[in-house]
């Protein structure tokens, strides 16, 4: 019995989950104090909140973080179904202005809400025919939950709390693994890289090596050269899952195709130049994170807007970055470890999709049934016709009252990708010049100052590029 228990605990997966649960407990306790009662508000009031939130998002993207914070503070004054979303965005704003303590506190509060807050009434309403999905408490998609844990973990690591940071990076990977066929399980390289960093800080060399290996494997799987092949594999696996009544011949065909794709994948991966990732395997005490592009957005589609898709926002400004440290050394960017748009767009379906699909079918049926009754009422005439007309109108009314629109609330203050620059800097102040390029064509450059402390396990520097103000003709001012 003792031996069995030992062997279970020995299994690293179980151990990671235990560590994740144990270390997130203080985080939960810290945020629990701030939990409020859910205030019931109408759909109209929710829309008004969204209008204000949109205004705050515009201010954030215009670089006016303080003004955005003021609006978000008003939006979270009452606990509504959207509060966790606004808290996520408020935390990002605080981090953008460099208020680490407030950002950390807000993210902790959000983590508690996303994980622990459950309002039975709004959940029940959301799955009923008459309630919109957006009337339930915002819980976020896997990529949004992952980002919350990532941001919180980074802030904890910067504050010296390595153990809780490790728990956050583990929780982020668990949140990220909610996908079809487990194909894209934990391909968020930055999480594994930071996990490795925490292990090295805790002198767990074997775990450190394993996490680095996972991070490099994630980099390979999400590399632009490999992505299309992985996409094909995911599509094929999805087909297999949807076609459960496939004949033996069909199964064999799919197996052959999968075998070929795997072969192609292995060949493509073998050609990748892994020397690109060398800096992350060397010693560093500072991690510069450059915010690039805008977060992906969710859009409705389908006859009644019952389906939703996550769409990448186009990034036209730049796609290559170089960093000059103290006017001495040029450092390269490292891409492919925190591609949030990729994380968002490669995730599988949700349980709510099935609910919305059946609601849409019901709405469609009621609507067409109502139409046919109204049409036939005229032919029947008399009292019978009037009765049929009344039933038809009721059916149309039911169809109109059925709310099937998919929830498209999303954390809009996320980057498209975080570019990494691992640095080994001496304690003190440093100047970092950042140059933006459109491939090989220079776009712009600016300078930032970073203060490095030797007391921190990792100095995390978040850089949100200054906004380029353009006139009406599109010229830079």
């Amino acid at each position, binding site marked *: 019995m003792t031996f069995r228990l030992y062997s279970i605990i020995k299994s690293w997966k179980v151990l990671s989950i235990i560590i994740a649960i144990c270390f997130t407990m203080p985080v939960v306790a810290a945020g629990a104090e701030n939990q409020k009662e859910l205030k019931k508000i109408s759909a109209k009031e929710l829309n008004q909140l969204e209008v204000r939130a949109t205004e705050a998002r515009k201010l954030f993207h215009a670089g006016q973080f303080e003004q955005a914070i003021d609006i978000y503070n008003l939006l979270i004054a009452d606990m509504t179904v959207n509060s966790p979303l606004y808290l996520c965005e408020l935390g990002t704003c605080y981090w953008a202005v460099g208020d680490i303590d407030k950002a950390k506190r807000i993210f902790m509060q959000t983590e508690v809400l996303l994980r622990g807050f459950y309002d039975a009434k709004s959940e029940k309403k959301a799955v009923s025919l008459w309630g919109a999905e957006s009337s339930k408490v915002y819980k976020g998609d896997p990529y949004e939950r992952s980002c919350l844990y990532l941001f919180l973990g980074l802030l904890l690591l910067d504050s010296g709390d390595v153990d809780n940071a490790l728990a956050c990076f583990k929780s982020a990977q668990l949140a990220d693994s909610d996908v079809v066929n487990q194909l894209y399980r934990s391909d968020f390289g930055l999480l594994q890289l930071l996990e490795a960093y925490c292990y090295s800080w805790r002198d767990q060399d074997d775990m450190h090596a394993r996490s680095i290996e996972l991070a490099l494997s994630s980099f390979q799987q999400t*590399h*632009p*050269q490999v992505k299309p092949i992985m996409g094909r594999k995911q599509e094929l696996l999805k087909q297999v899952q949807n076609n459960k009544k496939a004949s033996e011949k069909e199964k064999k065909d799919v197996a052959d195709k999968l075998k070929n794709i795997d072969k192609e994948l292995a060949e493509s991966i073998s050609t990748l130049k892994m020397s*690109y990732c060398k800096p992350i395997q060397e010693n560093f005490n500072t991690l510069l994170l450059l915010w690039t592009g805008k977060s992906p957005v969710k859009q409705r589609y389908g006859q009644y807007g019952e389906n939703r898709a996550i769409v990448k926002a*186009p990034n*036209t400004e730049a*796609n*290559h970055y*170089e960093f000059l440290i103290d006017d001495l050394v*040029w450092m*390269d*960017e490292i*891409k*492919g470890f925190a591609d949030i748009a990729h994380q968002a767009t490669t995730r599988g379906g949700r349980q709510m999709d099935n609910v919305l699909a059946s609601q849409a079918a019901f709405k469609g049926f009621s609507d067409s049934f109502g139409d046919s009754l109204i049409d036939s009422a005229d032919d029947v005439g008399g009292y019978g016709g009037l009765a049929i007309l009344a039933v038809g109108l009721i059916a149309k009314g039911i169809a109109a009252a059925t709310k099937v629109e998919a929830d498209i609330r999303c954390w809009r203050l996320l980057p498209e990708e975080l570019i990494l620059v691992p640095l080994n800097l001496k304690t003190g102040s440093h100047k970092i010049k950042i140059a933006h*390029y*459109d*491939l*090989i*064509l*220079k*776009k712009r450059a600016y300078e930032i100052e970073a203060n490095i402390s030797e007391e921190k396990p990792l100095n995390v520097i978040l850089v949100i590029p200054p906004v380029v103000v353009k006139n009406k003709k599109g010229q830079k001012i």
Partner: protein
Amino acid sequence: MKKQTIILLFVICSAMFMCSCATLPKLTELPSIPTYNFESVVCESPANCGIMTPCQWVKKHETAFLPALATELKQQGIPVSIFYKGDYLTRNKRLSVDKVIVIRNAKWRTLKACDGSYTDVHVFIDVYNTGSSEAIGSFDVWGRMNGSNVDLKDLAPYAYKNLVKKADFMSALSKHSE
């Protein structure tokens, strides 16, 4: 009854086709494209060149436009690298080129005549020194191909064959051009 209807439709369609043919101009009457030198110009001491495009439309068809230009320039003895949108670049790789050839835009049109058709492509190109954000030269070039159902992959080389006949473009790719 059915047979008669089909015959009638066929007759109407044929008549419409003949009318449209009659109203179309001849190939010789279609708008022409600029004329270029007969032979390509030799680039003295060619620089290492990189090809890229910031244009979204060209990016969508980058496999048609970028390799075709690289092939044409290589045939003229100019060392070329292609930079695709998804590439993970390094500073060293960026600095390995001296000149940046930017396909700023590309347009194409189909011209139909009663005795055939043409497909034209119009490519706009800028040349930069590496690290500079000011172009050392802007060029545009036309290419023409017979037929209307043309693949862009086949069409692009017709423009590039004319591009290497432009003396100012070829001199911009020289190490000595500023």
